[in-house]
């Protein structure tokens, strides 16, 4: 078998000399990667380098800008994990005032969470600038209603939307808030790391995924002002702007929806959504393969719902600006929705048409290319971006496994999209109760 693969490799390499061989070689790899993914990745890497150089040459700046901050913490069934979230927010070194607004959805049934919030005491001698204003929504209303309820009560100039099971570094608020000094910043995305890294293999892989695709990649994207999403678990907004665009909208994937609606002003105003790699939040990720794939079924299906069903009309350069239009088209639509279909169909066709040795060779080559990309991103992230390189180094054994999972995930993306197209999967979200979803506008 190995001989066969090697033979095929030699044959291919020897054929590189002539035009026909080169064409054959290119054709095999072309659809998967080169044409779009390579330049995209190069763009991201260039962004990371630019960020790094810019940061090296930046003057140290002690700003006196310390607006009041309101943290809306959406709680559902987190239980006592909420205490940790609240404590880490109290512990912030930010010198300004922080208002904590935990919103407990379905407080009547989530008694444990409710009690945890109720019994949490903010020691005023220890945390004089922190204030706790919990809100209990006895009847369940969903994430969006929690966020909007919190927004109604929020009195700070800056509003953070945070998850009840996410805890934060003590420099988080300070690092996020400083960006708002620029009046053209309506929102900021924060960095999410995995809290339960060492629970299982899948959590370790996800830790690497978060590190590469959020922590490192978004630094690059942010440099070109093309951050794709301000995560629902960890984002900050200028309250005034948020109120202006009407807060969060019902339906699932409210975070991507909000990001897109903010971006709809990019064509008209010189707005910018930065990503702050030094603002770290730790969140729990699914710890079994099953729950992991179910989570992605929701996330990737929501992409189709959002880009194709709900926001098809706003996909114009007039609204988004050319840069973000192209980025959404490539990074959002093509990579997430089209590429999985291409990969799966090429693989299927390949399995039928090509001899097994060729297939294996092909997979080996593809794997190597993705592996190389992973290694490059990993090293870049470790050297230039990571604030905890020692911990991230422990993820090294995951690097060879990572491309495999990404391949599986791409294939799974097909199922996700099909589920949304034919079954309207977004309507099955657990983010809101059925009686709320039923009334939402259908797209």
């Amino acid at each position, binding site marked *: 078998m190995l001989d066969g693969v090697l033979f095929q490799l030699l044959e291919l390499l020897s054929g590189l000399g002539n035009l026909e061989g080169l064409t054959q070689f290119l054709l095999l790899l072309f659809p998967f990667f080169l044409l779009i993914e390579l330049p995209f990745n190069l763009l991201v890497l260039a962004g990371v380098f630019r960020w790094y150089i810019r940061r090296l040459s930046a003057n140290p700046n002690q700003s006196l800008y310390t607006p009041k901050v309101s943290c809306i913490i959406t709680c559902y069934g987190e239980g006592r994990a909420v205490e940790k979230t609240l*404590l880490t927010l109290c512990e912030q070194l930010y010198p300004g005032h922080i208002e904590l607004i935990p919103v407990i959805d379905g407080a009547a049934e989530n008694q444990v969470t409710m009690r945890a919030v109720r019994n949490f005491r903010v020691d005023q001698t220890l945390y004089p600038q922190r204030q706790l204003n919990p809100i209990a929504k006895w009847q369940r209303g969903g994430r969006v209603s929690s966020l909007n309820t919190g927004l109604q009560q929020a009195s700070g100039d800056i509003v953070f939307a945070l998850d009840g099971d996410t805890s934060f570094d003590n420099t988080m608020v300070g690092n996020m808030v400083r960006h708002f000094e620029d009046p053209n910043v309506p929102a900021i995305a924060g960095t999410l790391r995995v809290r339960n890294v060492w629970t299982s293999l899948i959590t370790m892989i996800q830790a690497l995924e978060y590190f590469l695709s959020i922590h490192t990649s978004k630094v690059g994207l942010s440099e070109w002002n093309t951050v794709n999403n301000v995560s629902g678990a960890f984002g900050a907004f200028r309250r005034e702007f948020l109120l202006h665009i009407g807060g969060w909208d019902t339906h699932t994937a409210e975070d991507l929806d909000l990001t897109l609606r903010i971006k709809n002003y990019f064509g008209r105003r010189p707005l910018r959504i930065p990503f702050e790699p030094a603002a770290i939040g730790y969140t729990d990720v699914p710890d079994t393969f099953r729950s992991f794939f179910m989570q992605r079924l929701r996330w990737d299906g929501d992409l189709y719902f959002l880009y194709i069903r709900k926001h098809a009309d706003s996909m114009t350069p007039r609204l988004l600006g050319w840069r973000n239009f192209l980025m959404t088209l490539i990074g959002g639509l093509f990579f997430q929705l089209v590429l999985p279909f291409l990969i799966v169909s090429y693989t299927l066709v390949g399995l039928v048409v090509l001899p097994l040795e060729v297939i294996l060779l092909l997979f080996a080559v593809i794997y190597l290319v993705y592996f190389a990309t992973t290694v490059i991103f990993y090293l870049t992230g470790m050297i230039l971006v990571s604030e905890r390189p020692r911990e991230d180094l422990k993820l090294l054994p995951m690097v060879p496994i990572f491309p495999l999972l990404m391949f599986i995930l791409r294939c799974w993306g097909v199922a996700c999209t099909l589920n949304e197209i034919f079954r309207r999967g977004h309507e099955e979200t657990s983010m809101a109760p059925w009686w709320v979803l039923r009334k939402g506008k259908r797209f």
Partner: protein
Amino acid sequence: MKNPYVAFITATKDKSAPPNCHKFSGVNELLEHPEVDIVLLDQAPDQAAQSLSILRMQPAFQFNLIFTRDSNLVLGDGEIPDDPDLLIPAFRLWRERMSTFNRGQSPERFEERVLAWLWTRPSERLEPTLNSDAREIYRYPLLEVMAAEEPVNAMLWLNLMTEQEWLERGELLDRIRLCNRCNSGRLNYVDVCPDCQALDIAKQPSLHCFTCGHVAPQEHFLKNSLMICPNCLSRLRHIGSDYDRPLENFRCLSCQNFFIDADVEARCLECGEHHEPNELKIREIRPYQLSEHGRLRCRQGFSDQSVAEAFGRLNLIPGTSFRTLLNWEIQQARRYKSMQPCSLLLMRMEALEELTGYTEGLAIVDSLVDRIQEAIRDTDRCTRTREDLLWFLLPHTDRQGREVLRSRLSELSGLYQTQQSHWHKEIRLAGYTLPEDLLNQEDGDLLMARLTGEVS
């Protein structure tokens, strides 16, 4: 029985009095009419409470039935009945009880007044009321109005009355702590430095670096709005995984002492005294009511006890001891022919029980006891075997000495009679002297029985 004189006081001007009631403009007018039997206060609760305490301070209205609009007023007798005729049976009952109180004597002293009030209202209790303006927090309004000018320590008095079984304690309502110097309940509990007792203490947050284990006050860790361990220079980012707060200590800003737990001190807001909380007086707040024993004494009269008290001044010894002494004297007389003479004297005061039913009677008993005390010697021994029988054992007294005492005591008979001429009661005496009257086989018991026979 004549109908009661009912006074009606109303806050509404043109409201007319119910039938058979006399309308009064206010409490002040009512005070000029002590003949009123029943008062109906048709006033708002606050005003009625005020009127009640004014009326209850007046001897003329202290015990009278006073009905109000509100049934819960402490010094009132409940709601004004819809039918004025219902007042008559209530009044009849009240008057009956009033007349039987202490055998019909009108209550004079403070405790008598309180007992009379409780006696005439079988279902009432001495209720404490919460009053945050008062120093003791809880007050007994009844005791206050009954005390009038007399200074009365309510708690002390209640304890005394409970010990003497006049009153019994009701259920525990509250437990309060009072300053042990001025009895004020207005206390402020403050945490102070355990070393110098200064008030100015502050929590001092400390941090514990997980990397090197360094523990220091928080300000040592903060540098340029970052948290860095001053010992190992590692960045502390996340509570729980990089660092924690191991202890919350206090620092005294006056003596710089560093401590874990502050002392708690109770400071009296009235007199400024500082106490440890366990030095405070603890007071249990309860209602009180007449005990069974108390009720019995209200009915039978208090004077029995007063008579006993009066005789108590004679240093009475118990009957058995008296008999032992007497027997001993008899034995000596039998054995030593040359012993010093010794006498026994019995005094019977006829119908003493009747007499003590009246205040004057008690005064007579008092003066009787005074005179007896003058007549006898320190070395004499007395006992009282029956209400009316008083025994004296007179050592070193011969027949002559006995007769002197006998005549003195019989003179008292005059005192006994002249005070109230319609009582023809007399004092009878019987005497016996050792060794001359010694009979064979007669011991103390037989002797006393024989003498008792002589005087009856």
